[in-house]
């Protein structure tokens, strides 16, 4: 029961809202928890035990940690046991077969271990997301930034709140936990705004992401049959599809929570207006970026080893080398983790390394960049450079997403190589695009839909919030706009006969 499907939108969500409304305020958290676990059960059946087990484990560890003073060895040890247990489980369910495959590959090269059979392990939905939230809770308690929670229901809701189950956002304990158990009454404004956000999410997903699915599938599956320009287009299409899909689902998720008066953290902030790769990652899948920054980057940069190295390097090699090396020390685990977190595939690991290299290059080339602006007298704030930097970032994004979506690293590398030969720009108008399972009308919907989202994002970038403006209009105008949005989805959405809609992409990670 994915968030974009009618059983969720027309039955499950309204039913939970009604049950929530009918429950006395003090018991509403139990209604939310029961609904969340029912939702999880409907998606993953008995694998719900993983979530419940994680919740009990983390809850008890939190209580045990409380008994020891901050920074004490037992407290740290308990936190360490917790993190090892959580990541151990994640590694077991998601990565066992990946490691077996590696061992077998190495084995076939001479060690004789090449016959270890793969295991049939069922992966519970959202384990990558709730595991990070559970680790976040333990670390926050360990560091004393959050107290151990005595309310089991709150911990359970923090890890399993149903709109977040499949794709996050990955909240920090302080972001959402208290809101989840407040039992806030339902307010018409929240329900209205949440519903509009849900329809907006459906617009992005069903008009653009789902419609692009046939073309993306065709290009990535049969990449050997296409020349360079079409391969380049595959990267553009997938980046567009992923943005519309993931941000669209996030709109549905955040809109669903908003109906209950719960504010979840945003996961996107107009990422295609980024001027650098680093900025892109501050705007794209924000909550994963924040998690990595908070629980990997900062602990590494503030560790004793890093401090010692910094002191030594500054003295011996100067400030620049110290800065660059410390950055490399912290970025390497962040990006290795980011790549691996997406799943046990070499192209995801490559994707992490790709951004590690790019971000490190940004650090290394900083003095060159400053020198360039100084010598030429150009202002980096001029519209030309602004646009140039945005387009350059697009190239980085499209290339990265091509590797990310490719059917394996080998396919990704082959696709990348093919961009540099047989590049025929004429593919854009010679009819090649119409052989990807999409007709001219499909492209018209994709272009108009993307233009609508672009204008919306552009206004948001300029701090103009469309729905706030709409809410100030008179009722007939407001309703007419909402009806237009609903009917755009109903009529122009890519669903039903002849369409293969894309499954929730991030739910697979």
């Amino acid at each position, binding site marked *: *029961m994915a968030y974009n*499907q*009618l*059983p969720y939108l*027309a*039955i499950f969500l309204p039913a939970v809202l009604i049950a929530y409304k009918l429950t006395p305020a003090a018991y509403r958290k139990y209604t939310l928890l029961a609904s969340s676990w029912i939702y999880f059960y*409907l998606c993953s059946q008995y694998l719900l035990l993983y979530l419940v087990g994680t919740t009990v484990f983390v809850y008890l560890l939190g209580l045990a940690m409380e008994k020891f003073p901050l920074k004490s060895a037992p407290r740290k040890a308990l936190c360490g046991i917790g993190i090892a247990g959580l990541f151990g489980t994640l590694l077991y369910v998601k990565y066992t077969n990946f490691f077996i495959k590696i061992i077998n590959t190495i084995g076939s090269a001479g060690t004789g271990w090449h016959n270890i059979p793969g295991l049939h392990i069922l992966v519970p939905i959202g384990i990558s997301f709730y595991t990070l939230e559970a680790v976040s809770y333990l670390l926050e308690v360990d560091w004393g930034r959050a107290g151990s929670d005595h309310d089991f229901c709150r911990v359970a809701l923090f890890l399993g709140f149903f709109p977040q189950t499949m794709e996050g956002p990955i909240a920090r304990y302080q972001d959402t936990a208290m809101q989840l158990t407040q039992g806030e009454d339902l307010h*018409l404004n929240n329900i209205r705004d949440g519903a509009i956000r849900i329809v907006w999410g459906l617009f992005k997903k069903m008009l653009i992401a789902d419609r692009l699915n046939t073309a993306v599938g065709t290009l990535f599956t049969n990449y050997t049959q296409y020349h360079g320009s079409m391969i380049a287009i595959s990267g553009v299409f997938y980046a567009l599809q992923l943005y519309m899909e993931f941000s669209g689902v996030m709109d549905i998720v955040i809109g669903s929570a908003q109906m209950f008066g719960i504010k979840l953290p945003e996961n996107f902030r107009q990422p295609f207006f980024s001027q650098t790769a680093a900025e892109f990652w501050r705007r794209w899948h924000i909550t994963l970026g924040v998690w990595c920054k908070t629980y990997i980057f900062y602990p590494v940069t503030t560790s004793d080893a890093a401090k010692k190295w910094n002191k030594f390097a500054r003295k011996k090699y100067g400030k620049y080398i110290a800065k660059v090396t410390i950055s490399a020390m912290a970025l390497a685990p962040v990006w290795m983790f980011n790549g691996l977190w997406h799943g046990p595939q070499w192209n995801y690991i490559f994707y992490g390394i790709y951004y590690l290299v790019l971000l490190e290059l940004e650090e290394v080339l900083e003095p060159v960049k400053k020198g360039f602006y100084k010598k030429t007298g150009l202002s980096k704030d001029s519209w030309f450079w602004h646009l140039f930097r945005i387009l350059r970032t697009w190239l980085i994004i499209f290339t990265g997403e091509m590797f990310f979506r490719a059917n394996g690293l080998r396919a990704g590398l082959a696709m990348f190589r093919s961009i540099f030969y047989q590049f025929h720009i004429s593919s854009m108008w010679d009819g090649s695009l119409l052989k990807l399972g999409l*007709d001219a*009308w499909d492209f018209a919907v994709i272009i108009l839909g993307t233009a609508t989202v672009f204008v919306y994002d552009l206004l948001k970038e300029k701090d103009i919030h469309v729905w706030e403006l709409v809410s100030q209009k008179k*009722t007939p105008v407001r*309703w007419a706009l909402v*009806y237009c949005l*609903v*009917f755009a989805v*109903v*009529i*122009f*959405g890519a*669903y*039903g*006969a*002849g369409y293969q809609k894309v499954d929730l992409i991030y739910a697979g990670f």
Partner: protein
Amino acid sequence: MEKKHRNDSVGLRITAFFLILVLLLMITSQAFFRLALYSSDNKIMKRNSVEMLLMAQKKDSIDVLVLGDSESYTTVSPMQLYSEGGITSFVAGQPGQNMAETLHMLNVALQTQKPKVVLLETDALYRDGGSGSGFKDIFNVRLSEVFPVFQYHNLWKQIGRKNSAVIKSWNGYHINYNVDGCITTKNYMRQTDKVKQVSWVTQKALGEIQQKCKDIGAKLILYSAPSPKNYNMEKHNGLQELADVKNITYIDLNLKADKLGIDWSTDTRDQGDHLNDAGAYKTTEYFLSVLQDMGLTDHRGDSAYAKWDTRSAKFMSIIEGNIAQIQSDGQGQANASSK
């Protein structure tokens, strides 16, 4: 008092908003449904086209209705049934048709037809991925029944379209003379006591279909198309058990494949997933004998069915050519593999 007044006003506004929404959905549904009735563009209608063809059939002209997924329209050929036995039939099968859609298709048929026999191909009974998926299918079908715009929304693409791909179907049967034989049938229908159960949501849908057939006096027959890719003894056992419990006739053509003369090297178009014209000819011959035994009327020569005479003659000449082609392709492949 003021609060109550405000609450009333909010309630009224919500009701008004949804009433208008429902009204707009009804209006657009009517518009799209009418468009669908006149649409013959297969590229847009896709799997919905069979429903429109079914609705376009002359009232009370169909004696045998065939339901199911792609296995249905690759096993029963209505024109052959007519040509050789004068039996009028229609295959209301769709690619990937699930049981909720099968039930819907029966409802559509019953609006204009009173079939005497309903043949239900059983692959649809295993289509849902569990009860949850079955519920989702039912919900989607019900929604499309209330608001057909959800089913025919894609017809906006017809605007300004000149070169439409006209639906080519012989009362639901799709001609196909490709040959791609089975690589192996070693484990096909190997004996086992295992039973593959049909989900209770699907059983419920089957129960409804059975009841509807009973209400109009039609005989419901379950049948499994010969298909090494889709069938095994586990499924056969599950279906036989279900048929016994529900007291429905069940014919498993997988157990009769040899008797029917199915040659898995030539009679399948996709390595044992579906039959081609040669395979379908043989299964249709079998159904002809079953249906004739049930005493269905032979309409040949009846002036009211003159069109059937002309169409079936045309169809048979095409099919005979296709079968000859398949046999020569099969012979060619056999020669090539023996070299």
